[in-house]
């Protein structure tokens, strides 16, 4: 479908597809197997100038927004949903600075992210606090000109690879969710360490580790916004980043559809390509409709967010949920179209199915999203 992208957006799309096709796709299976972080591909991202597409021009970016980030994430994820995350999760770690950073913070951190010199990560989740951000145990205690951080963040994407971390910690436990604040922590700050790399089902080349703070002292200027704003920073960040997860999902789904269509021509049974069988045709048609509907929803939501609209939580949740459910369904169907071959690692679709699953889970499970969508609906109806 033609989404009437601007020339620049189309350029981003074309370039990211070229990167996916020529650089990511050939190495995706290898990285999936080894679980290594694809630094060589991060270098390609940097050289291609795509790292700054969603960062304001005055900080060395291209001045795009959520839509540009989504377009790029989708195309890169078509190549590999794990490798693309080095780029997309940097976006997640950067949004708090773009949204709540002051002039000094933006000038200090954004240019290196925009140029691809540094990756970023967002550290919210803990062992006992995922979707329930109020349960955060990591503390930030003010001591003179510093905050001292203590605690352990879990399942942090890009951990260990990123240079810049935006971290949510409790400055005032008594106030619950309203006692959280967000800080910028640089990787080489004394007291920052990382846990072992998680061995995951999918998105295996993406780095997922614990970030451990042990009396980690950071300058007090590193707080984003002010004390007590942490929960709001996190929520607003997710509102902006969920279309990115959705885009990752739709990129994976599109790849699954492409592979399935291609295979259906090649595979012959009973003397005919299986694409000539109605049973397969109907599956492909359903897959294509769902992928396109997901994309349309993401692009619309992204445009709305970029316009500066206020109530974006609902559409953000909708596109993430719809696209990730679609990705799971479409990749599962792609494996089905491939039959026994689809189950084998020599063929690309089982990886897509493994990679798709996480999109239903992270940045808020789809159940949490549905809850949020429903509560928005109810609130709207009562207003």
């Amino acid at each position, binding site marked *: 479908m033609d989404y009437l992208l601007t*020339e*620049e957006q189309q*350029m*981003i799309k074309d*370039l990211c597809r*070229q*990167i996916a096709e*020529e*650089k990511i796709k050939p190495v995706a299976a290898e990285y999936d197997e080894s679980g290594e972080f694809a630094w060589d591909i991060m270098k*390609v991202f940097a*050289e*291609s*100038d*795509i790292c700054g*597409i969603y960062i304001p021009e005055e900080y060395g970016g*291209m001045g795009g927004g959520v839509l540009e980030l989504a377009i790029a994430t989708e195309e890169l994820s078509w190549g590999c949903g794990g490798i693309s995350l080095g780029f997309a999760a940097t976006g997640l770690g950067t949004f708090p600075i773009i949204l709540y950073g002051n002039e000094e913070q933006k000038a200090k951190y954004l240019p290196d992210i925009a140029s691809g010199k540094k990756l970023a990560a967002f550290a919210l989740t803990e062992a006992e606090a995922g979707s329930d951000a109020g349960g955060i145990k990591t503390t930030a205690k003010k001591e003179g000109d510093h905050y001292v951080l203590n605690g352990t963040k879990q399942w942090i994407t890009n951990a260990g690879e990123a240079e810049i971390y935006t971290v949510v910690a409790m400055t005032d436990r008594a106030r619950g969710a309203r006692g959280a604040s967000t800080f910028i922590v640089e990787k080489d700050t004394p007291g920052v360490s990382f846990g072992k790399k998680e061995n995951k089902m999918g998105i295996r080349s993406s780095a997922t580790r614990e970030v451990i703070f042990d009396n980690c002292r950071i300058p007090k200027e590193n707080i984003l916004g002010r004390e007590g704003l942490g929960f709001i920073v996190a929520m607003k960040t997710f509102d902006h980043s969920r279309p990115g997860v959705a885009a990752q999902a739709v990129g994976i789904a599109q790849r699954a559809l492409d592979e399935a269509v291609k295979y259906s021509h090649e595979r012959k049974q009973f003397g005919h390509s299986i694409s000539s069988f109605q049973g397969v045709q109907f599956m492909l048609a359903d897959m294509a409709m769902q992928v396109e509907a997901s994309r349309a929803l993401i692009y619309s939501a992204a445009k709305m967010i970029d316009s500066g609209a206020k109530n974006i939580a609902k559409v953000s949740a909708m596109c993430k949920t719809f696209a990730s459910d679609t990705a799971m369904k479409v990749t599962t169907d792609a494996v089905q179209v491939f039959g026994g071959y689809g189950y084998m690692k020599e063929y690309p679709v089982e990886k897509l199915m493994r990679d798709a699953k996480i999109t239903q889970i992270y940045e808020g499970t789809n159940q949490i999203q549905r809850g949020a969508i429903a509560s928005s609906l109810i609130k709207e109806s009562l207003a």
Partner: protein
Amino acid sequence: MKIIVLIKQVPATTDVKIDPETNTLKREGVEAVINPFDMYAIEEALRIRERLGEGEIVALSMGPPQAEQALREAISMGCDRAVLLSDRKFAGSDTWATSYTLARAIRKIGDCRVILCGKQASDGDTAQVGPGVSTHLDIPQVTYVKKIEKIDAASATVERMTEEGYDIIETPVPVVLTVVKEINEPRLPSLKGKMRARKAGIPVWTAEDLGCDEGKIGLDGSPTRVVKVFTPPPREGGRVLEGEPEETSKELAGLIKDIIIG
């Protein structure tokens, strides 16, 4: 230091099919790209500029007006500017006339120290244009370059790939270097490059602009003529061995045993 990269626009695939009904090449939908070997030349030019910390890279191509697309791609990879040589009078040029025309343009651009191009074009495979250009310009050449060890405004030391290994050659500049794929891995275009390429003005020079001798360009200037074009006769297929792998492999071993024992 000025570097000129010669690029040719070619069909994306050499696997051009013949329509058996009309006996014509099926060209529909065949995308046009920069000759893959020229991509290495572009990359090497960019690396020379990076290495020297200065330099201007001019991409030069001769072809129909749509070859402008290839030049824009060269700019999106990082070339500073581009020039297209396009004129009906260039039609029918063989390698002699092409290298003459390119040499005229290189003279017009002026003050160039290094001329880079791919060892050959993927559609013609002649490997004649690079040496032809160096001869028309009366400057040295090194063909099949797989590494540039050293380069400055006075000389270059390079490795030329041979059938047995490689030669190390020192050459004064200006020089024509034709490169092989072992020399580097071409980068992708960058977003900023793509935007620059979109806006770049690419001058089109004609035979008149170049002050070409009309007897040396196009069909008239080409010593060679194509007189016949035909589809190659297929080699007759032989026998397909039937049976389970155990049987077929055994039968095959019997059939080719004499060749192997000699």
